[in-house]
């Protein structure tokens, strides 16, 4: 008679009895000897993959193995932004599919992840930037994704307190995606975990993968710190550590690991409604429902597996922040943290089979992974269940670098730290 379904009424009922009978969000599952599919990595993408495998493809005999606690990777350490304002045909349909899944996520999962579509605004500061955003906005429209190109006055109406008059690079306007916004990051991991658990998925924490069982070119299981587990199919969803884990299967990936820092301020009365990215510096910001300014900038730039960064980028980010919104000078930075990014060679992800049968790869998310969580899970589940790419994810091939079909939004080439 434990309470399982979430609603205001169940909360009120529980409140009368001291909330004593809530069913745990997910079981503390122990590994079974074998599964139809194992997902390596209990982050947002891994948990979403397990959920969609069970929900959409009927594959319920699934385990998610996580080396620590679920959501301990980038899903728990990002700036919570969701959007689909991409430029290239390989990307837009995928991120738009993700937006659509976000829009129905809470009802689907019965978990409030606070998906909040308060708008994402990219500022431009020159005619060239304006035309580049026009090109992007038009590309979005061609894919049926709404976008609006705003001029300076329209931006000023939305954010009258930006620095318009004393700016080194004056704001000329912005590209707005009204459907973009933010999502409570931890809740995404927990919501998927809970929903997957209810469909029979085993979520196995504190089980670090230490190796793969590979028999004549086919992956048949994983070795973990909680014993070896057999599986018909194995999916890697451990962005940040993709290269490390893949190397245990003898794979070398077109990926480097880099650290991205993010920041949150003390809670202050909300004055930033949507998400804003500064076009003349490395700075983007939103304000959480607790009142903290959540912001970030560029990656540190050097290869790193340490979940922390260095001072120059902190200064660079805050210089951007003060240049755009000088009223935050006396607001205090509360906390900073670092996440390890799978920086791919063209700034776009990989969802594909590998040279090893039964071993599937979901990697290379750079710092775009959070917003992609639902579609990434769906496409990866599709690939694992059907052995063919989902239509919105078919551009994310592993061999695209070999064939010269890069998906390079920024045009930075094979220099991962520039994407």
């Amino acid at each position, binding site marked *: 008679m434990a309470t399982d379904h979430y609603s205001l009424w169940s909360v009120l009922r529980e409140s009368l009895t001291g909330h004593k009978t809530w069913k745990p969000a997910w079981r503390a599952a122990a590994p079974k000897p074998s599964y139809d599919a194992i997902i390596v990595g209990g982050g947002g993408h891994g948990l979403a993959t397990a959920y969609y495998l069970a929900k959409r493809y009927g594959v319920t005999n699934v385990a998610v193995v996580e080396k620590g606690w679920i959501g301990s990777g980038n899903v728990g350490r990002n700036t919570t932004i969701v959007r689909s304002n991409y430029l290239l045909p390989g990307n837009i349909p995928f991120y738009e599919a993700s937006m659509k899944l976000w829009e129905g996520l809470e009802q689907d999962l019965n978990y409030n992840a606070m998906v909040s579509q308060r708008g994402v605004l990219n500022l431009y500061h020159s005619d060239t930037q304006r035309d580049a955003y026009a090109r992007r906005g038009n590309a979005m429209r061609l894919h049926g994704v709404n976008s609006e190109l705003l001029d300076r006055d329209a931006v000023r109406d939305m954010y009258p307190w930006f620095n318009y008059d004393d700016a080194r690079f004056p704001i000329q306007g912005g590209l707005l995606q009204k459907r973009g916004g933010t999502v409570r990051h931890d809740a995404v991991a927990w919501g998927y975990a809970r929903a997957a658990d209810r469909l029979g998925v085993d979520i196995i924490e504190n089980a670090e993968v230490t190796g793969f069982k590979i028999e004549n070119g086919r992956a048949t299981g994983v070795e973990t710190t909680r014993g070896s587990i057999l599986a018909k199919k194995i999916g890697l969803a451990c962005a940040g550590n993709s290269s490390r884990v893949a190397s245990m299967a003898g794979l070398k990936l077109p990926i480097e690991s880099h650290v991205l820092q993010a920041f949150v301020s003390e809670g202050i009365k909300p004055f930033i409604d949507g998400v804003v990215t500064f076009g003349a510096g490395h700075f983007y910001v939103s304000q959480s429902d607790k009142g903290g300014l959540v912001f970030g900038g560029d990656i540190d730039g*050097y*290869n790193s597996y340490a979940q922390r960064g260095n001072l120059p980028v902190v200064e660079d980010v805050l210089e951007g922040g003060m240049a755009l919104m000088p009223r935050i000078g006396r607001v205090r930075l509360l906390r900073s943290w670092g996440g390890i990014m799978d920086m791919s060679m063209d700034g776009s992800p990989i969802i594909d089979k590998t040279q090893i049968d039964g071993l599937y790869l979901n990697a290379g998310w750079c710092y775009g992974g959070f917003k992609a969580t639902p579609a990434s899970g769906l496409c990866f589940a599709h690939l694992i269940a059907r052995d063919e790419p989902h239509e919105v994810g078919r551009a994310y091939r592993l061999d695209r670098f070999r064939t010269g079909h890069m998906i390079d939004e920024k045009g930075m080439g094979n220099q991962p730290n520039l994407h």
Partner: protein
Amino acid sequence: MRINCPFCGERSLDEFVIQGDASLTRPDPAAPDAAAAFYTYGYERANVAGAHKELWYHSAGCHAWLVVSRDTRSHEIASVTLAKNVALARAKASTGGV
């Protein structure tokens, strides 16, 4: 993080630009397998968690390219040498390349 430039001395991270894995060498463009070799050179990365040899450019300093041995888990730097000297030594070792 601070890098000890062999010419300028120890300087802060923000004076440098990183290029990446220094264990890669530009393949022979004339070789029959050049296409495959250049793909590997251009795109595949060991991306090690641990001791990593990498190329840095002292952009705000003496403009020297450096080979830095750094641990990607601790950011601890074991050694820094002028890339030119490393390259010359390597060329001497294998008198190949253009």
